[in-house]
């Protein structure tokens, strides 16, 4: 089981801040493909991966990063703190 978090406009497009999924995806990219295949709102949120960032267990990662052992995935746009 994997906890997925969404922030900012990704959260708004998906329509929820968090969900728990069962997945066999080996990488972040494979997980994204699974989600896109599910529903239109995911396709909308993940339409342009270059506009998105991903964190695995609260550390910034890449879309080709492996998911083995990961408990928490987060998708969000580039940060705008400060």
């Amino acid at each position, binding site marked *: 089981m994997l906890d997925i978090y969404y*922030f900012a406009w990704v959260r708004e497009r998906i329509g929820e801040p968090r969900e728990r999924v069962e997945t066999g995806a080996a990488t972040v990219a494979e997980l994204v493909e699974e989600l896109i295949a599910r529903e239109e709102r995911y396709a909308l949120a993940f339409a342009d991966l270059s506009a998105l960032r991903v*964190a695995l267990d609260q550390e910034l990662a890449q879309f080709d990063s492996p998911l083995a052992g990961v408990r928490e995935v987060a998708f*969000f746009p580039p940060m*705008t703190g400060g």
Partner: protein
Amino acid sequence: MRIRVQAEAFDMGAELDGFGTGGDVGAVVSFTGRVRGTSGLTAMEIEHYPGMTEAAIAKYADEARDRWHLADVLVIHRFGTLAPGDPIMMVATAARHRTAAFEAAEFLMDWLKSRAPFWKKEIGPDGADWVAQKDEDEAALDRW
């Protein structure tokens, strides 16, 4: 080292009271960011990623402390709904010399701006817009 992620407002002056008063400190630099009340902005909403936020800030603060031999470092960042004029965040650095204190503060600002998990939304008369990352903010990281 003082790191806080909070919804509450803070007072820049009060936070600096007694900061960096150690024996070997010759220079204290602070930066405070505020919500600008321009373009009819009525509010700013800041979303963050609890847990990751604190860890990311601690990582950059540690790195700044080690790299510039800081005697002290302070980072405060707010989330939630803010009004124009409100303080958003602040950093402060204490070092022997001014160059180290300035560089460490700018380093922290550049990293917090583009790598700490905060997202700003501006609420104005025509609706709400997520703030887009600026190319220059991403580019600013290259100098470190």
